[in-house]
């Protein structure tokens, strides 16, 4: 069984908007969400800026009792999922609910809770930890909380593949629906990486920019951490049409693969191979792609190898392509990044508009890609959205209208 797969609901929380419409308005305006990190003492950390979801207020979405077992990353997942579900207006039969899938991505899981718990233990010599420490920090906490809220009982799991987590999650949920293993799926990713311990760990890796994120630009100085969540509701296209739902976009293909090259250095060959796998899965030639939402982290290494991969796959046709790197707007939200980029890509297809890559200074001859620097009309065709994780794990989604 092979079915076309529609996206009928989207939701997100991010540094540039706590709903999909607010996020989209910021994307169109080129509103960058990168600012001084708040919430704890940043003295002694070499970088100071991040893309925090500053306006996210848990008390608007949960009562005090509900918050006890929920780390911030799970709260973000639930709020984004509620928005996507409200838009999709699914009415599930008992049989459909028994097969309904939830596949989420997260790099860290409940790091905020874990960091606070271990600080109280090691630093403050507290004799005991809160009993909800484990349920809060498990990477599937968001997915599990959603099953409780929705009563969905089908295949539910969480993928953790660093910066590719959300793309791997969405790709697997897409395949479940495409091949008839679930009739509806909720999928995406969420991340809340702003803890003192994890910021110190990122500092040690020397890939975080001291100022801002400048994908594919000369003078780029690294990535900027972000937080947030993105969620999609997927169902067979025929089902969506039959019930009169609005089809926002279709997922047309998914590809995944490993570089088997280096723990942190990306490989152009691995990225190109994964792009080709995604196009083959979508049964589309490279010239059918009009827009690429790049992984585009703004690190020295990623942007050069990703440019080489794009040149390799799209060749002379790359001049008919527009590349946008929305991490310049919402930061690198690790396991949520692919989901935020999916939301930006889907809204781009729906509104036939490509959002700008911001913070660009001047062209880098090593990053020769047709970068979209201002809001532009959608050129043509379908879109790819790239995620290339540390550890060399790549995942590419193909979206079409």
């Amino acid at each position, binding site marked *: 069984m092979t079915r076309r797969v529609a996206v009928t609901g989207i939701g997100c929380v991010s540094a540039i908007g706590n709903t999909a419409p607010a996020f989209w308005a910021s994307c169109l305006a080129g509103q960058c969400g990168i600012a001084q990190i708040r919430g704890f003492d940043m003295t002694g950390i*070499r970088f100071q800026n991040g893309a925090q979801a500053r306006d996210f207020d848990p008390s608007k979405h949960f009562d005090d009792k509900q918050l006890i077992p929920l780390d911030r990353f799970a709260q973000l997942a639930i709020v984004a999922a509620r928005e996507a579900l409200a838009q999709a207006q699914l009415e599930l039969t008992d049989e459909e609910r028994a097969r309904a899938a939830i596949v989420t991505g997260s790099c860290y899981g409940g790091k905020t809770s874990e960091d606070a718990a271990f600080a109280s233990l090691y630093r403050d010599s507290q004799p005991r930890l809160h009993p909800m420490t484990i349920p809060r920090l498990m990477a599937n906490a968001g997915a599990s909380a959603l099953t409780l809220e929705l009563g969905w009982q089908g295949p539910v799991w969480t993928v953790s593949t660093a910066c590719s987590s959300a793309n791997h999650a969405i790709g697997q949920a897409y395949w479940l629906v495409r091949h008839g293993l679930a009739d509806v799926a909720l999928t995406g990713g969420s991340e809340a990486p702003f803890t003192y311990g994890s910021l110190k760990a990122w500092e040690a890796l*020397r890939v975080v920019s*001291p100022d801002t994120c400048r994908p594919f630009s000369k003078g780029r*100085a*690294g990535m900027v951490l972000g937080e947030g969540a993105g969620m999609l509701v997927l169902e067979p296209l025929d089902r969506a049409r039959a019930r009169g739902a609005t089809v926002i976009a279709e997922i047309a293909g998914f590809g995944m693969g490993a570089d088997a090259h*280096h*723990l*942190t*250095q990306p490989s152009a060959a691995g990225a190109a191979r994964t792009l080709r796998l995604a196009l083959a899965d979508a049964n589309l030639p490279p010239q059918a792609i009009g827009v690429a939402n790049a992984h585009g982290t703004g690190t020295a*290494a990623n942007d050069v190898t990703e440019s080489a991969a794009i040149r390799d796959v799209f060749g002379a046709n790359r001049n008919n392509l527009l590349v946008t790197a929305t991490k310049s707007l919402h930061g690198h939200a690790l396991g949520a990044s692919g989901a935020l980029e999916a939301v930006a890509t889907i809204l781009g297809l729906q509104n036939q508009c490509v959002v700008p890559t911001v913070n660009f200074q001047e062209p880098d001859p090593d990053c020769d890609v047709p970068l979209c620097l201002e809001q532009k009309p959608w050129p043509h065709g379908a879109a790819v959205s790239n995620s290339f994780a540390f550890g060399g794990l790549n995942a590419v989604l193909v979206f079409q209208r």
Partner: protein
Amino acid sequence: MSESVSPEVLTRVLRTLAETQKLPFEQVTPEATFEQLNIDSLDGINILFALENEFDINIPDESARLVRNVRQLAEGVQKLINEKPAPAA
């Protein structure tokens, strides 16, 4: 600007490098390039971490990026040691 490196600092840099890279001490010479020593980007940040601990200094990302060989590394370390505020009397 090249900094004149004290013999003691140079030896400690070479030793730290050899220990971090699991190389025989004799193989790490001031004239060796990182390429010759098989030092990739990931090894590079491990070495910077070890040097920061060895000399109690903070090596900024920008200066770390420009270093290509052992001598430049030792000069950079010496510069940071010279810039360290003298301990209060």
